[in-house]
């Protein structure tokens, strides 16, 4: 049953983005992760359910003390969950970790409710591996986030995708501590 939900979700993403997701082990990994984390997702689903029912000016409290509001300019409130705009990835992977799906959904909702809002998705990688492959990997990460936003009803014109690969690190160490900070997509509101 849980797997069925996930597969349906993946199928919808495929439809939404108009191109097949990569049919490799990554999808299988997601299945396993999502399966075990399904309860968490359902809890979140309760929360987002109330969000979905709130009107545009409403503010909804989330379980972790943050709140969510989709008012214009709400992204500048550090207590608003939309102030979180970094999605971190696993090494050499362009699969969006399951724990960020809700966050991306919130941003998607904001963008679809504020059609004049524009974002740039900036894909980055850590320094390991080759420079050009990393630019391509960063692009794939940003595209993966874009596809999830499109699924939330965001118009393609609202989203710009760019990859810097390993060229613009925010942490300069040569260890996992720095690497994990550099493997990310930044959601930048313009």
């Amino acid at each position: 049953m849980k797997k069925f939900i996930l597969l349906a979700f993946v199928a919808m993403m495929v439809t939404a983005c108009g191109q097949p997701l990569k049919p490799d082990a990554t999808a299988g990994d997601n299945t396993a992760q999502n399966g075990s984390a399904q309860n968490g997702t359902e809890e979140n689903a309760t929360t987002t359910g109330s969000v979905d029912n709130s009107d545009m000016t409403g503010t909804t409290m989330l379980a972790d003390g943050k709140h969510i509001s989709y008012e214009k300019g709400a992204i500048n409130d550090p207590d608003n969950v939309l102030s979180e705009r970094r999605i971190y990835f696993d090494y050499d992977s362009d699969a969006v970790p399951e724990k960020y799906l809700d966050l991306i959904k919130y941003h998607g909702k904001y963008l679809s409710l504020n059609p004049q809002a524009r974002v740039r998705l900036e894909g980055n990688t850590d320094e390991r591996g080759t420079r050009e492959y990393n630019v391509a990997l960063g692009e794939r990460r940003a595209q993966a986030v874009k596809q999830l936003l499109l699924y939330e009803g965001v118009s393609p014109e609202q989203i710009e995708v760019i990859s810097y690969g390993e060229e613009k690190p925010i942490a300069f160490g040569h260890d996992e501590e720095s690497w994990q900070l550099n493997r990310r997509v930044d959601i930048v509101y313009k």
Partner: protein
Amino acid sequence: MKQILASLILVFFASTSHAVLKIDITQGLEGALPIAVVPFQWNTKKLPDADVSAIVVSDLARSGKFSPMAEKDLLSHPQQPKDINFKTWRVAGMDHLVIGSVNLQPDGRYQVKFRLFDVLKGQQVVGYSFFATKKTLRTIAHQISDYIFTQITGLPGAFNTRIAYVTVQHNTKTGMVSRLKVADTDGYNPQTLLTSDQPIMSPAWSPDGSQLAYVSFEKGHAEIYIQNIHSGVRTLVSSYPGLNGAPAWSPDGKQLAITLSKDGNPEIYILTLANKLLRRFTHQWAIDTEAVWTPDGKSIIFTSGRSGKPQLYIKSLTGKQSPRRLTFAGNYNASASISPDGKLLAYVQGKGNIYRIALMTLKTGNYQLLTQGPLDESPEFAPNNSMVLFASQENKHAVLAAVSVDGKFRQRLAFSEGDVRDPAWAPVRD
């Protein structure tokens, strides 16, 4: 018995007398050929604009194939053939001897002469005379190195070409400064072609050595430019939505293989420069990038994630057959450079957190690891197939290094500014 210096450090000074480059030979000169280069005689009061014989000595040393006698060990300083006592050079274990002169002419030009002798036979092998200007004296010195190298090894020399590279400085106040630079192969005469506060990547030389294709993010997104290194004139050749990356010239210089994501995914395309015609070359849901052309111009070797991890593949430009996978060992093989003779493939092999330069014999598929890592990348063959230039990490800085294809000889090129990366070795000097 020749004792080999494990670490021969050669420090050069530019005419402006600040050190621009230190070449540190970090490993092995075993089997290198003994040669004595007598300091060239000159007729001016002060040293000419370039120390020609010193340049020849350093060129030969950093080729890894020669072990020039240290100047302090020279037995004598013959200036004419009649002054040479071959027997003493034989006893000292020298196979070859070079003498020469640099003479300033009344018209302001230099006349440079040199002679190469076979010590065992007691005979002159070659002798040349050149005219040089103040500006071209260093170039003439590199040409002499090429003549000596070719005469003795039978291989073409690669001293008188250029390298391109990217320097990056990160400053917490001013942000990032990237520079695209071109220098002689010994790091001299560095010239900046482009300065940007955004990344510059992947310089690639045109086959005639007159132009560089590269990626610049100067407008906030990736674009590919071609720039003439003499005039500085540049042309924007690719600015599609998404990725514009990994330019690689076809051997005839008429086409560029590039990576674009305009159709949704990083794929390789062939751009014909004359008419801007674009043809898609790969069709795969995974990443395809880092194209290099085989020297016959018939195939392209590239990196693809189609097996789940980056591996190298070869695909014909004309045939309809599927790409053939070249690498099987290790879960990360990428960024190929093919030797100009088409026999060897250098690439990055990653295992765990260690990334090293590997070298494959294409005919057999056998490979060996040339370097120790941990973060080696961007391998680039010397035009004479004998060495691989690459980017490496040392003391938390990005440096350039070179290793001989037998793995025995290694040197580090340390530049004075920031991180240095993305080396490209010009096939010829234009």
